[in-house]
């Protein structure tokens, strides 16, 4: 568990350093994600607890957004009179883009005869 956590932090640190050095718009943790992915693909030995630790953090990913969410509530007066219009626009825009993304994905997968990954067929 500690080894796994150290690996996650080291890769995030490497990602942050790369972002500073290269001035890339991609955040450091995303570079860290890519590095860990390459590590796994290259089959370089990694402490076996890495998998469990990653699953453990991701299981409660929702928790990690709570402080930012509370911050947003504090900032709501910033929206002023435009608040309700903004919420309305967000709701319409996300409905359109969620539907367009999923329908496009599923339609092309069907066209290419790729199986849809229904819950019965899932691997853990």
């Amino acid at each position: 568990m500690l080894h796994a956590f150290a690996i996650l932090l080291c890769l995030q640190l490497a990602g942050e350093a790369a972002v500073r050095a290269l001035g890339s718009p991609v955040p450091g943790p995303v570079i860290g994600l890519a590095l860990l992915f390459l590590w796994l693909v290259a089959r370089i030995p990694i402490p076996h607890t890495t998998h469990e630790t990653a699953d453990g953090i991701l299981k409660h990913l929702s928790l990690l957004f709570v402080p930012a969410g509370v911050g947003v509530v504090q900032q709501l007066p910033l929206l002023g009179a435009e608040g309700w219009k903004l919420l309305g626009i967000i709701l319409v825009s996300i409905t359109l883009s969620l539907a367009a993304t999923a329908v496009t994905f599923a339609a092309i997968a069907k066209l290419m005869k790729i199986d849809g990954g229904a819950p019965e067929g899932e691997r853990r």
Partner: protein
Amino acid sequence: MIDFVDLWVYLSGSPLLWLTVTLVAYLAADAISTGCGRHPLANPVLLSVVFISIVLVLSKTAFPSYFAGAQFIHFLLGPATVALAVPLYRHLPEVKRMFVPMIVALVVGSIISITSAVLLAKWLGLSKLAMLALAPKSATAAIAMGVAEKVQGDPALTAVVVIMTGISGAIVVTPLMNALRLRNYAARGFAAGLVSHGIGTARAFQVNPLAGTFAGIALGLNGVLTAILVPLLLPWLLD
């Protein structure tokens, strides 16, 4: 008897109190969400935020003192993002098979997400700052704020819009996909992550691990694509 006010002054000054409140509020919210069969409206992020905000208002606590404790949880977003590589690697065969549908859906979804928000805002006569905050709303907060800064928007307003987009998308996605009768969980998860970044990804992991994996990929890819597309599309959209 201990003087309650002294105790409060002591506790509210240390990070322990707000760290504990955040964790306990989340556990309560998660228990309610599980009790409601993971009903989309019982979103654990939304419920926790409501609980904590009520406590902060009642105790007249300013956000900086709250964040002094909550920052330890907020900090974990970084390692959690790195950890997304593990399910991605585990589901690599599915990801490879779905590569073409994924890339086409990414481009379609990203363009619709940016243009629909900006055009609606223009139509309703919103301020330019609001339009600039709406354009990168589906990117993860760090990227969206960077993009907003680049196009002379307001990063704080953008962060508010990004989190609102995340929570709304996490609530809307399941009923919408059911209404569309979409059973492809890779497609459902991918849409959730593309539109609602990390909060949509958290929702997808609640529903199904494959959906969560594709949501994580979409979160990364759309973050990058939004950073490229917004500066390109904005002059044309605001014209």
